[in-house]
């Protein structure tokens, strides 16, 4: 007997024969007669199947062609952050009962996913200081954009004012989300008036250059104009810095990746979304609530579902139909493991290491730290040469440098330091930057 071709498909030829007979057809072809004959069974230009052994070798070879932080010292941030992830997190997320279940539409057999989601919402409220949170969005930037749409629904206004220090990439995504909603995006400076017809003022803190914004003052200005304050925050920074809740912000979005989620080249991540209680019925996404079962026992369920696309269809608060639950689980396990003191400690380690690095770099000839306010773990450095050139030279020394912001500010490089960067790495970076600047200076004096 010929063994099956695929380990993922259990039925044998004999099984199939019995089943086709039970169905009452002679062959599989009889089951697809409605597919137009001229297009049926097309040629597929794919490669042959790989054994698990060969597959592992092939993908491992691809992975080996990437320069991996860890092997390289890495000082990139700007929306995605390298933090230590405890082993517990990885082992919990590998549980098949979490990994291979669907959205908890049948709550009696999804209490695991649901209770994790309730913990997740609770933790977001705690770290942001907000009253309610949903069960998760795609990522930080899309959650931020959904925040703007929500503000438009609440205020019935259509001008979205965005502070000019918000990352341009976030504005680009905001544009994609609001383009066909009749909304207008207006970029405003810190000292500009919030337009009188604005639905919201959108603030990012720390901003695109790493500077912590005065969210309370900005929220006050938004409220004076009858607009809502929508903030995008870095959740790690909230281990130390003032929360959006304390600043009277109305709607909060955040990229949850920093809390226990691998960098994974940009995804999958999880968007955190929280707001004041009065606005909860205008929230996008899934929400989990606590209730009881017929025996009076505690249970959790998806709730306020009439906001969502599967019920309200074209009038839903959003088209989203995921909560990125597995990534929420990563975050929930991460925060559970870090606990109350660990959450603060990570923020403090980032803060002190980044400020140490900034002070050392600022001392180097040719380099200046250019921040117009306090920062957390990222800072802008004006370099003596284009950052792309510096980064190439750093790469030769097994260092992945900061993000090149040369398109926004002259020779600007955004350097991020987290608890994963050791003092040895930071000192190597500083030494390397000094050498690279000297080589450049030398090259210049020699000149043609």
């Amino acid at each position, binding site marked *: 007997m010929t063994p099956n071709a695929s380990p993922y498909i259990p039925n044998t030829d004999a099984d199939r024969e019995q089943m086709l007979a039970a169905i009452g057809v002679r062959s599989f072809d009889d089951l697809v007669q409605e597919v137009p004959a001229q297009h049926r069974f097309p040629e597929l230009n794919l490669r042959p199947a790989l054994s698990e052994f060969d597959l592992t070798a092939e993908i491992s070879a691809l992975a080996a062609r990437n320069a991996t932080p860890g092997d390289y010292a890495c000082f990139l941030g700007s929306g995605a952050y390298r933090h230590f992830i405890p082993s517990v997190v990885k082992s919990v997320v590998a549980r098949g009962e979490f990994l291979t279940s669907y959205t908890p539409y049948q709550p009696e057999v999804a209490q695991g996913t649901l209770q994790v989601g309730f913990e997740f919402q609770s933790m977001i409220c705690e770290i942001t200081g907000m009253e309610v949170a949903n069960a998760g969005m795609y990522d930080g930037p899309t959650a931020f954009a959904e925040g703007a749409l929500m503000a438009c629904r609440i205020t019935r206004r259509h001008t979205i004012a965005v502070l000019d220090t918000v990352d341009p990439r976030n504005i680009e995504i905001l544009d994609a989300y609001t383009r066909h909603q009749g909304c207008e995006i207006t970029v405003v400076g810190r000292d500009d008036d919030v337009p009188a017809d604005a639905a919201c003022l959108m603030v990012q803190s720390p901003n695109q250059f790493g500077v912590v914004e005065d969210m309370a003052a900005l929220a006050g200005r938004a409220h004076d104009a009858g607009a809502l304050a929508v903030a995008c925050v870095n959740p790690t920074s909230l281990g130390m810095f003032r929360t959006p809740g304390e600043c009277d912000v109305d709607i909060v979005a955040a990229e949850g990746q920093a809390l226990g989620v691998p960098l994974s080249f940009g995804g999958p991540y999880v968007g955190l979304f929280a707001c004041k209680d009065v606005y909860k*019925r205008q929230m996008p996404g899934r929400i989990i609530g606590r209730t009881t079962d017929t025996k009076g026992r505690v249970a959790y369920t998806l709730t306020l*579902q*009439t906001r969502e696309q599967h*019920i*309200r269809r074209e009038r839903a608060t959003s088209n989203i139909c995921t909560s990125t639950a597995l990534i929420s689980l990563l975050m929930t396990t991460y925060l559970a493991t870090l606990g109350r003191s660990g959450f603060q400690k990570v923020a403090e380690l980032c803060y002190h290491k980044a400020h140490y690095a900034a002070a050392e770099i600022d001392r180097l000839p040719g380099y200046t730290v250019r921040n117009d306010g306090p920062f957390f773990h990222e800072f802008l450095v004006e370099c003596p040469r284009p950052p792309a050139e510096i980064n190439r030279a750093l790469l030769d020394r097994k260092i992945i440098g900061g993000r090149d912001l040369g398109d926004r500010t002259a020779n600007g490089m955004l350097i991020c330091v987290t608890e994963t960067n050791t003092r040895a790495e930071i000192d190597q970076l500083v030494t390397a930057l000094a050498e690279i600047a000297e080589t450049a200076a030398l090259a210049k004096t020699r000149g043609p």
Partner: protein
Amino acid sequence: MTTPDDRKYSEEHEWALVEGSVITVGITRYATDSLGDIVFVELPENGTEVTQFDKFGEIESVKAVSDLFTPVGGKIVEVNSGVIDMPEKVNEDPYTVGWLVKIEVSDQSQLDKLMDATAYDNLTAE
């Protein structure tokens, strides 16, 4: 439960009860039965002007949402805060404690466009 014959009914399953120049509006038992457990009621504020048969609010059960269409036009003079706080009152008795709004009506002839209880029962029996 029998359909009260002291009031008029619309095809959208709302009732209108005349009390002088003010008309009380609610939804019918047929509507609550098809919606199931009502969990949220959204009603306009006092003073809002509404037009006959236009949407004036929304009513939600766990897994459905329905528009509310007013059986008469006029100015809303009272909103039942009881059903906003405890939506289950609409299920309990949609004809008494579960009323939704009171509307001051200038033109009583609007009522002619509504059905009586017998006609409404015939409609829902179909």
